[in-house]
């Protein structure tokens, strides 16, 4: 893929109030490309899932850093990367199964990855136990007609 026409990297601590901040930041960049309302909602939701996972699962007992990268490409593709240096996932394939969760006590539905998969065009998860987790997602948006 070519060079991005705009991009942003944000680093913030794994505090649950930053779930909202991450959505605001991602909207701030993606909305510059004039996406349709439902496309922006899809992207915000996927980012919210990934960031929440880093907060809830990646750093269950501590506060660590989360890095969010957003890139806009000329072909209206949005690239999103969410990564943490938390506890990591032992079996990524199992983790991605709908309804699978290691925190049913916390009212987690086990649907975070399922939402990311169905709301974005592409998702790739890489993780290493004790090292952290990285989620990369892509979505092609339909920019509104410009005058």
């Amino acid at each position, binding site marked *: 893929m070519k060079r991005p026409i705009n991009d942003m990297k944000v680093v913030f601590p794994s505090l*649950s*109030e930053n*779930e*909202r901040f991450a*959505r605001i930041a991602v909207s701030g960049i993606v909305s510059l490309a004039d996406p349709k*309302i*439902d496309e922006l*909602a*899809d992207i*915000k*939701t996927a980012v*919210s*899932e990934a960031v*929440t996972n880093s*907060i*809830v699962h990646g750093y269950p007992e501590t506060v660590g850093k989360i890095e969010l990268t957003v890139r806009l490409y000329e072909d209206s593709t949005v690239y999103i990367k969410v990564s943490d240096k938390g506890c990591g996932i032992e079996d990524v394939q199992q983790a991605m199964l709908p309804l699978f969760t290691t925190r049913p006590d*916390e*009212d*987690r*539905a086990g*649907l*975070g990855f*399922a*939402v990311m998969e*169905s*709301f974005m065009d592409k998702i790739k998860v890489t993780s290493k136990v004790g090292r952290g987790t990285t989620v990369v997602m892509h979505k092609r948006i339909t920019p509104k007609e410009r005058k």
Partner: protein
Amino acid sequence: MGVELISRGKVLCARLSGDIDHHGAKELRRDIDIAIEENCPSELILDFSAVTFMDSSGIGLVMGRYKLMNERGGTVTVAKTPAYIGKVMRVSGVGKLAKIVNEYTLPKEDEQEVMKIETTNQ
């Protein structure tokens, strides 16, 4: 983000508002569960009409309330979901647990109890 709780007869209605994410879900959950304890409803209506954002934390909220109501022999109804929230609901298959409706009417009653809980936490 907040929830307004209205109890009428055997129906408890929770009107949710604002962004529902993991950060806010805990408080919503607590407020709704206290109202269930106090009013022992046979039907819990979750009204999403004023919800502006929801991720799978909202699904967890519905599933958790379903479990609680089911244990008590009651049901859960999900009402008035805006388009983007309907999409999250569909992906999750929550329709198997809760009845999904566009409109509802609360039972009229002389004795009515309204509890308004507005969480201003952003």
